[in-house]
C-alpha cells in the first residue's frame, strides 16, 4: 500500500473490495437467502414466432412442492403493460406493449411463456418441463431487411410496419430541410477526389457478464416490497415497479447486492422477469428468488451490436476528409425491453459515428427494425462498436486510396481544438487528441515496423499494423440523458461523517466490479486528509442512497466521484467555519484550513490544529456554542452536474501476423494511449482498459449469437457462445497522455464504458495491412479464420 494522506488521488491503493472477494465472502445475489424463500423457474418459448394455441399447466400444478404456475393470460389484467413513462425515452418511437409473460403470441425463441414457483429449484424445473404449450407457427422475420420489405409479416399487433425507430441525425427535423441537406452533401461527394462506399456489418454479440441476472423479492404488508436485484439502476427499477404493480413508491425498496458479477450494460435495462417475480411475491406472500441460467441469459439478454452500415466517405487525395454519408440499419429484435427498447444503442452509435475526426459535413440516418429475436440489450461500447468498426475501416481504405499511411490520415483529420461540436451534435468538452495520438505514435515505432514487415514479407511472412481511436462519453449529462432515457444525468453522493472521524458515503448507482468502493474512498480520503480505510461506501440501496440514474456510461469517475468530492467540500467548509469560531479566529476563512494527515490545520499558524476526529466529534456530539445560524451534525448530499457533457479519448495500435495458408492470425502486440484526465487509481484504470480491450477482441474474434433459418437460437451456452480465454489474448500495454478535465473537481474523467469500441477496427486494420498484397478489405464481423482464408484464397486465385 503506497500513498500518503495528502496524495490519495493518483496513487496505487489496493482495492478494499478484494478481501471479501478473494476469501469467498462476497455477497452476490445468489448468496442471499430470506426465511421462507421459494424459487421460480421460467418456461420459455421453443418458437421464434407463433400464436399460443393452448397452454396446459395442470401436471405442473399437481406436482408436490409446486406453489404456483402462471401464464400470460393469468397476469395480463393484474400487471400494467409496458411501456411506462419512467422507462420510456423521450424520443419519438413505437414502443411495443408487453407483459412479463407472452400474451397471445411468442415473438422470439426464449421469450418467457409461463413460470413455476416451487419450494426447490430442482422441482420448479421438473414442473416447468411438464407444461404443455401448443403453438401455431407464424412466419419468422429474421433480419432487418426482410422486416422492412414490402409485405413483411408485421410482428407487433396493431403496428403498420416493423419500424421501431428512425432518425435523421444531420438534416434537421423536417423533410424539406433533410432534402436540402442531402443535396448539399451530394455536392461534396460529386466534387471529391476519392469516394469510398462500403457496406459494413457487425454481428450480434455483447458483453455477457459472468454472473447472470437474478432477483429476490419479499413482500410484507407493513413494510411493503423489498427487492434484491442484479441491476445497475436500482432507483429506476423502483420507480418502474411502482408504476407497473401499482405499489406506492414509498413501499418499494430495491437493493442491488453489494457484489455483482459484472454488468457492462446488461444489467441496466428494466427487464420483464423482475416485474413478474415482484408481482408473485406479493400475490403469494412468499419471498421468491430467481437465478437466471446461463442458457436463459444467452437467449434473452447480452445481445447487442447487430447493425449494418452503408457508409460513404468523400476525401481529397491529400487525405483530407470532406464528407460522410451513412445509412444505418439495425436488427432490434422484439424491442420489448424497458429503458432501451433495443433501439437506443443504434441511436447512440449513429451519434458517435463521426468519432474524433473533423467532418465538414455529413448525412447520417438510421432505421431500426423489429425482428423475431430477443431485443438488443446494452453492452459496453453501447451502439458505437459497429459504427466505429465501419469508421476505422473506412479511414484505412481512404488512406490506401491516397497512398498514405493510415496513421497520417488519422492525425491529419483529428479534431485539433476542443471544445468542438460534431456534425451529429456531440459535444467534446476538453482534452488534447493530438497529444494522445503523438504519444501512441512514439510507442508504435511505425518506421521500424515497416522495415520488419518488409523483411518478413521477403520470407513469405505477413505482418501487419493497425490503428484505431475513439472518443467515449465520460458520463452522460442531463442534457443528453433526459431526452434519451427520460432520466437525470447528475451524479449524487451522500457523505455522512461519523463521530469517530470515519466517513460513510452513499451512492445510488450500483457497480459491478468497477471498484467504486476504492475509487471513491480514495477521493474522499484525499479530500479530508484521512485514510481510505476510514471510509465506507454503500451503493445501490434505494432505502439509504440518494437518487441516481445508474451505473451507466462511465459515470463513476466523472459524476459520482465529483458529487462525493463536492459533498466533502461543503462539509469541510462547515468544519472550518466552526473551528474558526471555536478558536476565535475572527478573520479566518474556510480556505485557511487544510485537511491532511488526519488533522485540520490553520495554515496561517500551523500550531493551531485539531485532529479530524476531534473536529468532527465536536460538531456531531457537542452541538453547543455554535456560530449563529450553524447547526450540529455533518452530512451532505451533493448532486453533481457538469456544465457540459464530457468525454475521454484513446488511441490504439496493434500488430499481427497472419498465416495465409489457414487465415489464422496471432496478435503480436497491443498498445494504447489514453486520456482519462486525472487518474484516481492507476491500477483500476489499467484494469478497465485491459478488460475492455479483451472484451472487444472476444467480440471481434469469437462471440456470435446465431439464429438458424427458423429463428432457433443456436448459441445459448459457453460451448457455442465462445468467450476469449487467457490463452487467446495478448497482454495490453496501457500508456497515458492525460489532460485533466476542467469541469470536474479532481480533473478526472469517467472511463471504460466505450473502450472496446475501436478494437475491431484496429485489429481488422492490422490484418488488412498484413494482407495488403492481396488487396483484402474486411467489412464484416466477426473476424474468423475460415472467412479470412476464403478471402485470401479468392485473392490468390484472382491474381
Amino acid at each position, binding site marked *: 500500500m503506497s500513498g500518503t494522506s495528502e496524495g490519495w488521488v493518483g496513487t496505487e491503493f489496493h482495492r478494499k473490495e478484494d478481501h471479501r472477494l478473494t476469501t469467498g465472502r462476497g455477497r452476490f445475489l445468489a448468496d442471499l437467502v430470506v426465511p421462507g424463500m421459494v424459487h421460480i423457474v421460467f418456461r420459455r418459448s421453443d418458437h421464434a414466432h407463433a400464436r399460443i394455441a393452448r397452454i396446459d399447466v395442470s401436471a405442473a400444478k399437481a406436482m408436490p412442492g409446486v406453489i404456483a404456475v402462471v401464464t400470460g393470460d393469468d397476469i395480463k389484467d393484474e400487471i400494467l403493460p409496458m411501456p411506462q413513462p419512467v422507462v420510456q425515452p423521450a424520443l419519438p418511437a413505437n414502443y411495443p406493449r408487453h407483459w412479463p409473460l407472452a400474451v397471445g403470441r411468442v415473438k422470439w425463441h426464449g421469450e418467457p411463456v409461463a413460470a413455476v414457483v416451487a419450494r426447490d*429449484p*430442482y422441482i420448479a*424445473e*421438473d414442473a416447468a*418441463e411438464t407444461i404443455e404449450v401448443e403453438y401455431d407457427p407464424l412466419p419468422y422475420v429474421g433480419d432487418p431487411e426482410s422486416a422492412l420489405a414490402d409485405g413483411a409479416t408485421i410482428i407487433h399487433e396493431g403496428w403498420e410496419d416493423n419500424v421501431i425507430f428512425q432518425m435523421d441525425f444531420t438534416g434537421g427535423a423536417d423533410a424539406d430541410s433533410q432534402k436540402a441537406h442531402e443535396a448539399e452533401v451530394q455536392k461534396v461527394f460529386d466534387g471529391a477526389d476519392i469516394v469510398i462506399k462500403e457496406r459494413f456489418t457487425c454481428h450480434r454479440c455483447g458483453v455477457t457478464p459472468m454472473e447472470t441476472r437474478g432477483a429476490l423479492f419479499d413482500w410484507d404488508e407493513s413494510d411493503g416490497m423489498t427487492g434484491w436485484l442484479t441491476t445497475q439502476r436500482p432507483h429506476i427499477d423502483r420507480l418502474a415497479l411502482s408504476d407497473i404493480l401499482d405499489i406506492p413508491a414509498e413501499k418499494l425498496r430495491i437493493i442491488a447486492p453489494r457484489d455483482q458479477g459484472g454488468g457492462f450494460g446488461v444489467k441496466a435495462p428494466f427487464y420483464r422477469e423482475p416485474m413478474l417475480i415482484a408481482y408473485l411475491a406479493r400475490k403469494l406472500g412468499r419471498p421468491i428468488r430467481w437465478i437466471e*441460467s446461463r*442458457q436463459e441469459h444467452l437467449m434473452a439478454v447480452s445481445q447487442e451490436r447487430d447493425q449494418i452500415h452503408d457508409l460513404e466517405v468523400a476525401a481529397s487525395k491529400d487525405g483530407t476528409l470532406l464528407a460522410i454519408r451513412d445509412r444505418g440499419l439495425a436488427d432490434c429484435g422484439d424491442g420489448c425491453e424497458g429503458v432501451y427498447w433495443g433501439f437506443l444503442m443504434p441511436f447512440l452509435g449513429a451519434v458517435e459515428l463521426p468519432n474524433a475526426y473533423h467532418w465538414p459535413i455529413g448525412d447520417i440516418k438510421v432505421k431500426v427494425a423489429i425482428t423475431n429475436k430477443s431485443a438488443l440489450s446494452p453492452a459496453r461500447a453501447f451502439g458505437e462498436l459497429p459504427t466505429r468498426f465501419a469508421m476505422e475501416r473506412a479511414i484505412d481504405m481512404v488512406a490506401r486510396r491516397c497512398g498514405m499511411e493510415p496513421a497520417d490520415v488519422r492525425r491529419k483529420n483529428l479534431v485539433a481544438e476542443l471544445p468542438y461540436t460534431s456534425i451529429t451534435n456531440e459535444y467534446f468538452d476538453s482534452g488534447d487528441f493530438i497529444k494522445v495520438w503523438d504519444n501512441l505514435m512514439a510507442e508504435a515505432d511505425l518506421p521500424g515496423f515497416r522495415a520488419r514487415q518488409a523483411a518478413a514479407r521477403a520470407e513469405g511472412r505477413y505482418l501487419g499494423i493497425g490503428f484505431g481511436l475513439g472518443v467515449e462519453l465520460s458520463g452522460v449529462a442531463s442534457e443528453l440523458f433526459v431526452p434519451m432515457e427520460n432520466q437525470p444525468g447528475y451524479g449524487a453522493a451522500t457523505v455522512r461523517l461519523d463521530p469517530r472521524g470515519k466517513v460513510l458515503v452513499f451512492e445510488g448507482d450500483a457497480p459491478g466490479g468497477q471498484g467504486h468502493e476504492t475509487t471513491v474512498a480514495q477521493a474522499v480520503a484525499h479530500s479530508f486528509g484521512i485514510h481510505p480505510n476510514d471510509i465506507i461506501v454503500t451503493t445501490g440501496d434505494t432505502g439509504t442512497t440518494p437518487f441516481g440514474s445508474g451505473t451507466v456510461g462511465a459515470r463513476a469517475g466523472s459524476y459520482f466521484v465529483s458529487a462525493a468530492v463536492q459533498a466533502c467540500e461543503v462539509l469541510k467548509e462547515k468544519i472550518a467555519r466552526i473551528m474558526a469560531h471555536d478558536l476565535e479566529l475572527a478573520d479566518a476563512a474556510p480556505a485557511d484550513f487544510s485537511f491532511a494527515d488526519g488533522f485540520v490545520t490553520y495554515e496561517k499558524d500551523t500550531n493551531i490544529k485539531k485532529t479530524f476526529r476531534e473536529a468532527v466529534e465536536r460538531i456531531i456530539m457537542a452541538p453547543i456554542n455554535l456560530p449563529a445560524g450553524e447547526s450540529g451534525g455533518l452530512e451532505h448530499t451533493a448532486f453533481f452536474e457538469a456544465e457540459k457533457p464530457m468525454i475521454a479519448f484513446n488511441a490504439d495500435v496493434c500488430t499481427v501476423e497472419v498465416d495465409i*495458408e*489457414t*487465415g*489464422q492470425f496471432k496478435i503480436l502486440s497491443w498498445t494504447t494511449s489514453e486520456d482519462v484526465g486525472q487518474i484516481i487509481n492507476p491500477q483500476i484504470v489499467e484494469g478497465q482498459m485491459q478488460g475492455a480491450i479483451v472484451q472487444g477482441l472476444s467480440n471481434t*474474434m*469469437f462471440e*456470435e449469437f*446465431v439464429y438458424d433459418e427458423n429463428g432457433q437460437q*443456436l*448459441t445459448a451456452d459457453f*460451448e*457455442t457462445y*465462445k*468467450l*476469449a*480465454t487467457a*490463452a*487467446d489474448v495478448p497482454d495490453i500495454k496501457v500508456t497515458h497522455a492525460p489532460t485533466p478535465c476542467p469541469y470536474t473537481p479532481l480533473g478526472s474523467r469517467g472511463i471504460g464504458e466505450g473502450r472496446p469500441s475501436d478494437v475491431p477496427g484496429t485489429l481488422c486494420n492490422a490484418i488488412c495491412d498484413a494482407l495488403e498484397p492481396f488487396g483484402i478489405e474486411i467489412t464484416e464481423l466477426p473476424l*474468423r*479464420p*475460415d472467412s479470412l*482464408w*476464403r478471402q485470401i484464397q479468392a485473392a490468390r486465385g484472382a491474381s
Partner: protein
Amino acid sequence: MYPAPIDEYVRPATVADALAALGRYEEGDAVFIAGGQSLMQAVKARLVRPRCLIDLQAVDGLSGIEVGAEGLRIGPMTRYAEIARDARLGGAWGALGDAARRVGDRQVRNRGTVGGSLCWNYVAACMPPTAIGLGATLELTAADGSTRSMAAEDFLGGPLETAREENEILTAITIPPAGANAGSAYKKWGLVTDALPVIGVCIALEAEGGRCTAARVAVGGLAGGPQRAGAAEAALAGVAADDDAGIAAAMDAAAREIETQGDLWADSDYRKQLIRSLGADVAASAFGRAAGEEAGQ
C-alpha cells in the same frame, strides 16, 4: 440446469459388481459415470435421464498405464492429467500426450478419462482419432465375465455411436509396442485455445533413414465419426521427412477423401484445409519423434 430425478447412486468395487448393477435396470436406465465431463453435461441438459448412476471411480484395476512387452495397456479410468504427465509416452506414443495435454482445460483433464471419451465418441473429441491413429485395441467385458477385443476403428462409429453392447464395460485400451523408428503426433484446431476440435489429426508412422515406411492417419471432428484416411496413409509411404511437397500431397489426399461438414465454426472447405495444414504439422512432429526428437506441442 438440474438433472432429472435419479433414484440410485452406486459405487462398485469390481467390474463384476459394476456390470451386476447395470443388469438390475432396464436398458439405458443405469449408466456408468467415469469422469462425468461429458455425461454430466447431458444429464444436466436432461438429454440423458438415468435412474441409476454407476460410478466407476472405485472399480479395481480400471486405472493406470502399464508399459510391457505387449505394448501399452491403459485403464479406461485413466485421466487425461495422468497421461499428460507420463514421461514414458513419447516417440511412438507421443500422440497420446499431445491429445491429453490439450483436452479442454486443467479441470477437465483432472477428471475426464480416456475410456469415457472413447465410449462417448463425441463428434468433436480428441481420443477417438488418437486411438484409431495409434491402432488401439479395446477390451470389453460382458456381464457373464467374458471379454472381447476389437480395433478402435471398429468400435467407434458415427458421433455418439460405438459397438459397445448395453451389458458391456470397457476394461482396457491396448496399443501395440513401439517400433524402434516409430513416432506419432496429434494436433487439433478450434476457435479458442484447447477448444473441442473442429478438426483433429493423428498420424502414427514408422520411418527408416528418415523415410516413411508405414503410416496411419486418422481424423476427428467429422459428422461421420472419426475416420482413417487410407489414401493419405498410402501416399505417405516412401515420403521423406524433409519432403514438404510429398507430405502436402499426402495431406491433400486426406482432405479430398474425407467428407467434411460445415457448422458454426467452419464450413466444409475450411475443414478440409485444416486437415491439410494440421496434417502437415502433425506429420512433421511424428517424423521428428520417429527420429528420436522429443518435441511436444
